[in-house]
């Protein structure tokens, strides 16, 4: 596989495309598929076939177009996006190809949801066919890898990544360049590159979206990473609950192997790299690096104390690079445009963009990518489209079960690593769950504690027993049977878990509790002292004591 070959494929693809009079893109990522977008695709194909247009107009299955709330989504080459398309609309859509779009189906794109996004990770989502490598190559895919292999040394690659200021997108925000540099410098007989696709936060589906829409991007990022650190074997650890993403990855890997982009002597160089997929089996804790490694080793997914860090002693005791899906997805564009370009986006300490999934009580549920530093207010009311049915914004949960609930008074906070941490939350992987006045914050805290209790691996005492005790107290509060002594115990346990737990799960399990205790103390008080739930969610008959 050479740069010339890639250019050839791209040219061939572009020529084929230019001969078409039109292209109709139908989203075939999980969200729209659940609304039967595959039937819509078939209906469009039949409609074109009936008119003898199949040769001149293509119906393409593409990845996520972002605004899942309005799916199934269909777009045309002219840039029009149609919303909530059903099979009955196929005729009209085909009728209007090459003419003005179908007004009643049209989704306005001159709105903040689209205009405020800066698509880097998602630049191909909704445009390329995730199951055709040629489409990816035509969109400049694998040109970064080619450039790296022909023109750069591993340390130059690492320098570029360091210059970009990219920080781990899995949640911890650790400087990526530094991690790559550490792995590169560590000594071992065999190095590994792992992609953490275990996205376990309930309500977060950014990684799923990227993997279903543009899997080659992540693969390219991994290959570049392997080259930079000196690894020859890679794993993508993907959760079992993502069968479509897993399938698309398998297809993509096979295609990349066929074109000589994976395997031995990539690009005619001595560099060899192979990727295998490892499917998870339903354990949130396996999103933690050392637990993930244990799982790939075929063991129970229990974390181990760090140091030693995986960068030095990881999989099978060897230096291992572990990064999140989104982190790898940023690598090709950084190589193509340069680290300085990336560092020019975002804030002083949080460079680049971040993909977020907007869920919960918000009009525009879906996936968006914005520059770091966008304010929460913009996320809620402009990009998110506000709270539906005229209700009031109450809080936004960022970072999943490891994060905190941020109330209205902090809406002007910019979304970046440090600012969110200061509010007692975390950036996390990017899941944002919006809540309105119909949510009880104590109930929300209990929900997350239940999650942490169920997902706790059980190895360390603070998390294993502490989450149980905290859940018991939160249940008592929602059952209106708790006392102020219980509240004090809850706070003490929060402190204990945060400082003594073995891994991030236990250490951040108190975050939803602490943030709601701080910002919504009145609700706790109402439950305990007045036996009332201000949101009307909890009642004396609700719930069962743990």
């Amino acid at each position, binding site marked *: 596989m050479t740069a010339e070959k890639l250019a050839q494929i791209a040219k061939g693809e572009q020529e084929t495309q230019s001969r078409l009079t039109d292209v109709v893109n139908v989203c075939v990522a999980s969200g729209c598929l659940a609304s039967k977008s595959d039937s819509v695709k078939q209906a469009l194909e039949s409609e074109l076939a009936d008119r003898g247009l199949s040769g001149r107009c293509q119906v393409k299955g593409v990845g996520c177009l972002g605004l899942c709330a309005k799916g199934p989504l269909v777009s045309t080459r002219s840039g029009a996006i149609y919303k909530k398309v059903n099979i009955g609309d196929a005729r009209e859509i085909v009728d209007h190809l090459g003419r003005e779009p179908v007004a009643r189906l049209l989704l306005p794109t001159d709105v903040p949801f689209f205009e405020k996004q800066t698509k880097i990770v998602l630049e191909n989502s909704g445009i390329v066919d995730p199951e055709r490598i040629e489409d990816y190559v035509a969109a400049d895919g694998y040109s970064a890898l080619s450039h790296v292999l022909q023109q750069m040394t591993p340390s130059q690659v690492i320098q570029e990544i360091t210059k970009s200021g990219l920080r781990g997108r899995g949640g911890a925000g650790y400087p990526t360049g530094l991690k790559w540099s550490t792995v590169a410098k*560590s*000594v071992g007989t065999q190095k590994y590159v792992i992609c953490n696709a275990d996205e376990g936060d309930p309500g977060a589906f950014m990684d799923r979206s990227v993997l279903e829409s543009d899997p080659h991007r992540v693969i390219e990022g991994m290959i570049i990473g392997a080259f930079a650190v000196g690894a020859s074997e890679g794993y993508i650890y993907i959760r079992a609950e993502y069968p479509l993403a897993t399938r698309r990855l398998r297809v993509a890997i096979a295609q990349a192997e066929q074109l000589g982009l994976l395997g031995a002597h990539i690009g005619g160089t001595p560099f060899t790299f192979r990727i295998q997929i490892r499917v998870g089996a339903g354990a949130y*804790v396996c999103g933690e690096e050392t637990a993930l490694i244990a799982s790939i080793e075929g063991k129970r997914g229990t974390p*181990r*104390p760090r140091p030693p860090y995986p960068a030095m002693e990881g999989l099978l005791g060897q230096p291992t690079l572990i990064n999140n899906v989104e982190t790898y997805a940023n690598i090709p564009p950084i190589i193509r445009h340069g680290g300085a370009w990336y560092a020019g986006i975002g804030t002083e300490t949080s460079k680049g963009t971040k993909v977020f999934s907007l869920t919960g009580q918000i009009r525009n549920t879906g996936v968006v990518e914005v520059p770091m530093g966008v304010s929460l207010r913009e996320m809620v009311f402009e990009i998110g489209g506000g709270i539906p049915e005229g209700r009031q914004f109450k809080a936004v949960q960022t970072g999943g079960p490891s994060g905190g609930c941020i109330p209205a008074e902090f809406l002007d906070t910019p979304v970046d690593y440090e600012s969110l941490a200061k509010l007692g939350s975390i950036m996390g992987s990017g899941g944002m769950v919006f809540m309105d006045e119909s949510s009880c914050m104590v109930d929300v805290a209990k929900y997350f504690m239940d999650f942490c209790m169920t997902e706790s691996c059980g*190895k360390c005492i603070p998390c294993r027993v*502490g989450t149980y005790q905290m859940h018991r107290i939160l249940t008592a509060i929602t059952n209106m049977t708790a006392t102020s002594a219980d509240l004090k115990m809850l706070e003490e346990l929060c402190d204990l878990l945060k400082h003594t737990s073995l891994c991030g799960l236990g250490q951040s399990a108190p975050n939803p509790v602490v943030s709601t205790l701080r910002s919504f103390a009145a609700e706790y008080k109402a439950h305990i002292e007045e036996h009332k739930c201000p949101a009307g969610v909890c009642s004396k008959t609700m719930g069962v004591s743990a």
Partner: protein
Amino acid sequence: MSCWRMQQNDGSKRMSPVGGVKTLKIDGRDFSARPEETILEVACQNKIFIPRMCELEGLSTVGACRLCLVEVKGSNKLLPSCVTPVEEGMEVTTSSERLLNYRRMIVELLFSERNHICSVCVSNGHCELQTMAQKLGITHIHFPYRYPKERVDATHDRFVVDHNRCILCTRCVRVCDEIEGAHTWDVMGRGIGSHVVTDLNEPWGSSETCTGCGKCVHVCPTGALFEKGRSVAEMEKRRNFLPYLTMMRKGHE
């Protein structure tokens, strides 16, 4: 005595210098340490008490109980002394108001987790959990008891496992795997639903892999594993076999 994480890979080098003695301060006093020694090892050598439950000399360290956490100057995190290697110039505090509070809470959580009733237990008076509670000055348990219904498995002809008294320290798992080599014990489930099991969660008496060596019984810190024929307060554990076997094995290398 080296720690488990020091398995040498062929040709691998550590980033810290090998061969240099390190000096550090523990509780204001100066000590020296060999390379790769952990804070706990140095403390133990010098008779400084750091509480711990899952650690046992001769077995790999897992850093699970969190009792051995110490304060280290310059780090805002508490570090588990059983797995943390000594660094040159480190300043360690092994005991403070804060650490004592955390240790008490951890032990109290253990008491609340299962059914630890000393008065009827074979290990009464010889129990590490009991001794730890006394050492930490625990007088009563603040957390409500969970009262889980746990099993007692007396099918083995010589030993009994009483899950009411198990604190999931995993010493039994480790000794059976690392010293005896049978790996009869492991942990099933997760979180607070975890249990130690023999083979495929079968009665211990019908285990195909258990050699009946009794090592697990003697490394168990509480009365969870004990010998048949012992009555209340009669189960005294004998641990000398562990450093002895370790030493004998080293001799063969």
